[in-house]
């Protein structure tokens, strides 16, 4: 047994943190894209867009850190997982191209604004679905031979991966709606409340069904969840999910402004924790552990020095940037 916090384990946590930071920050901004068709063209759409325009680029940088960090810290895992998920990942990056440029283009070209709004929604939808499918396909396991992927280019497409994809769409849409509850007022806020309630119920159902199916996918998952005595610890996760879900519904019905967003993030954090319980210490489930995939200590240590100084600094100025653009996005901004 290696000591609990050796370099590969530490890096697994850093990458998990990057993924969570990505979900926290890009989740609502993709969610706003998903909800865009429900908003009326004009002030409603513009306000929604304005609430993320200065921060979307930083949000997506966490995705680059997740991908780049995986290559640097776990090159073998990067080399196996990415070709296995070729189609959804290519779809994801292309979708991010479309929605990313839409932020600028829709302002530069009022005559074609509805086309760039469509690109924004389509891009957000495809990127979200692809991220969910990627997660689902990884969870259900991929075929590995030697040091590479050995399956076909459609292996990722299964009912389970589609279920996870759809769940993520619901989850990001809820993040988007609750973000707008926090950042807007008036009709846009009311509209967001109306969207958030069914989405919250939908997300709770999605988390329930994905959680019910996951332990059945592989014997190892089942053991990690239900073996005695760790079941005493793992059982806390679904318990907390139930508490968080109940509080979320309560916060929405009482018309709270910040709590719905924070509680939705809580649900995401617990889901990520559940994912960790299922696959740890593997990085490619049932095929490659984090220790087998880890880069040599010289690589991990070199990066750790930088990460331990730089990530806190990054969080500080990211916080500053959000602080500069704090407050509500309202109709007063329009002349």
């Amino acid at each position, binding site marked *: 047994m290696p000591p609990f916090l050796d370099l590969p384990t530490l890096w697994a946590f850093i990458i998990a943190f990057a993924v969570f930071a990505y979900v926290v920050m890009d989740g609502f901004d993709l969610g706003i894209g998903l909800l865009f068709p429900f908003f009326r063209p004009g002030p409603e759409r513009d306000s929604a867009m304005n609430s993320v*325009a*200065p921060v979307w*680029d930083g949000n997506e940088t966490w995705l680059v850190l997740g991908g780049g960090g995986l290559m640097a810290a776990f090159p073998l895992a990067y080399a196996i997982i990415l*070709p296995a998920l070729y189609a959804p*990942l290519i779809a994801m990056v292309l979708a991010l191209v479309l929605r990313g440029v839409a932020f600028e283009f829709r302002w530069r070209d009022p005559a074609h604004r509805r086309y760039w709004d469509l690109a924004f929604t389509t891009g957000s939808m495809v990127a979200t679905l692809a991220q969910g499918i990627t997660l689902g396909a990884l969870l259900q396991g991929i075929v590995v031979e030697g040091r590479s992927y050995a399956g076909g280019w459609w292996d990722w497409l299964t009912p389970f991966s589609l279920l996870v994809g759809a769940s993520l769409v619901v989850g990001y849409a809820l993040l988007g709606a609750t973000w707008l509850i926090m950042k807007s007022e008036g009709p846009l806020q009311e509209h967001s409340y109306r969207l958030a309630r069914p989405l919250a119920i939908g997300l709770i159902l999605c988390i329930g069904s994905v959680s019910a199916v996951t332990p059945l996918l592989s014997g190892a998952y089942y053991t990690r969840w239900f073996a005695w005595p760790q079941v005493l610890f793992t059982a806390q996760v679904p318990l907390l999910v139930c508490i968080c879900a109940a509080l979320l519904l309560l916060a929405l019905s009482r018309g709270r402004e910040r709590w719905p967003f924070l509680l939705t993030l809580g649900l995401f954090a617990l889901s990520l924790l559940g994912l960790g319980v299922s696959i740890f210490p593997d990085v490619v489930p049932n095929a490659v552990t984090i220790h087998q995939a880890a880069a040599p200590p*010289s*690589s991990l240590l070199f990066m750790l020095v930088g990460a331990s100084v730089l990530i806190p600094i990054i969080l500080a100025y990211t916080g500053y940037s959000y602080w500069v653009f704090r407050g509500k996005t309202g109709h007063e901004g329009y002349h």
Partner: protein
Amino acid sequence: MFDQYDALLLARFQFAFTVSFHFIFPAFSIGLASYLAVLEGLWLWTKHEVYLNLFKYWLKIFALAFAMGVVSGIVMSYQFGTNWSVFSDKVGPVIGPLMAYEVMTAFFLEAGFLGVMLFGMTRVGPRLHFVATLAVATGTFISAFWILSANSWMQTPVGYAVNAAGQFVPENWLTIIFNPSFPYRLVHTVFAAYLTTALVVGGVGAWHLLRERSNPGARVMFSMAMGMIALVAPLQILAGDMHGLNTLEHQPTKVMAMEGHFESHPEGAPLILFGIPDQQAGTVRDAISIPKVSSLILRHELNAPMKGLDTIDRANWPYVPVVFWSFRIMVGLGMLMLALGTLSLLARFRGGLYTWRPLHWFALAMAPAGFVAVIAGWVTTEAGRQPFTVYGLLRTAASASPLEAPAVAASLLAFIVVYFIVFGAGTGYILKLMRHAPHSGESGPEAGPDGLIRTAGITPAPAVNPARTLGAEV
């Protein structure tokens, strides 16, 4: 459509396509970020309104170019894994950390302050805003530092060992980062970015001078750009020459392909100006050449012996025609840039910088030259590294992912369609912004063309004294 190609060739074409499209934007935004910092600094220092107007004019263009650079860059960070998985597995321990440092030191810095730079002037005041501009400009440079270090290591690998799994394992990070070709490549690429931006700014200035000779904004930008070109073009030729000598030392086959030297020349090699390289026959047909000058340039001696590709195993040859021609395109454009810079100096000393129309037409024609030269230069160095991804150590054919050809063909087609639509539209919007003459009271990117304000969030009370903010100065 792609039936006749195998998965490897498709993957190479996809990488070349996506990286070329991507690099167009950083090549422009590295220089433009610095130019914006200079303009804002000049405005804060002199309080001349023309600098503020130019700052806002180019900031709108920067916002578009930067967004396109960001999204095309996300594609690159995943493509190493999707299409070059064996390469990633073997080389990840060395170049992965370099790229992770790029993300942590550069991408976050740029992204974190971009919002403030684009939309935050009225919120943070001019001085803090200038800090944001400097942060973004510094970020673009740091980004170039790390990614060029990674690329240079693939050209001139040092400081590594190979482990039992066949992975390159870092032994000395300083040796890896400052590998032999890195300093030359960094200087050459950053100069190239400055020239690219100067040529675009100069071309836009020239266009507006041709239409309205007295436009003060057009005069300032044209004068600044021409000064930059006159200064950097000769320095770039010097840096390129030194880079070439470095390549001769560490990657001789690349230089043989650039020069079209299929045969060895024991008593001085000719400089082949033009000709048709024939890879099969191993010769340059219809060559126009100057005897012994290649030896003079590369060895600084007329009769110095030069080895040719005939001393290299054919299996290790790069594809010569591509390297040969892309190199000539780059050098030819470099000479034209030198000519433009020199002519502008001449005009400046005779007092005709703003009135000599042939110079303006020349500058206008040269506006896209930087992009073409930069891409040609990258084609020279990347195609010249073939058939290896890590020069001499890891073959390209042994680097690719185990993907089926239809998968790569489908993705390549999707990239081509999406990129042409998105970057075609984006280039159109940039040209539309450039067509407007710079004028007094220029609006910034926080205002859409139909007058809508794009700020995100409204501060309950003004965070700064409105009298200190931009709007009040104009």
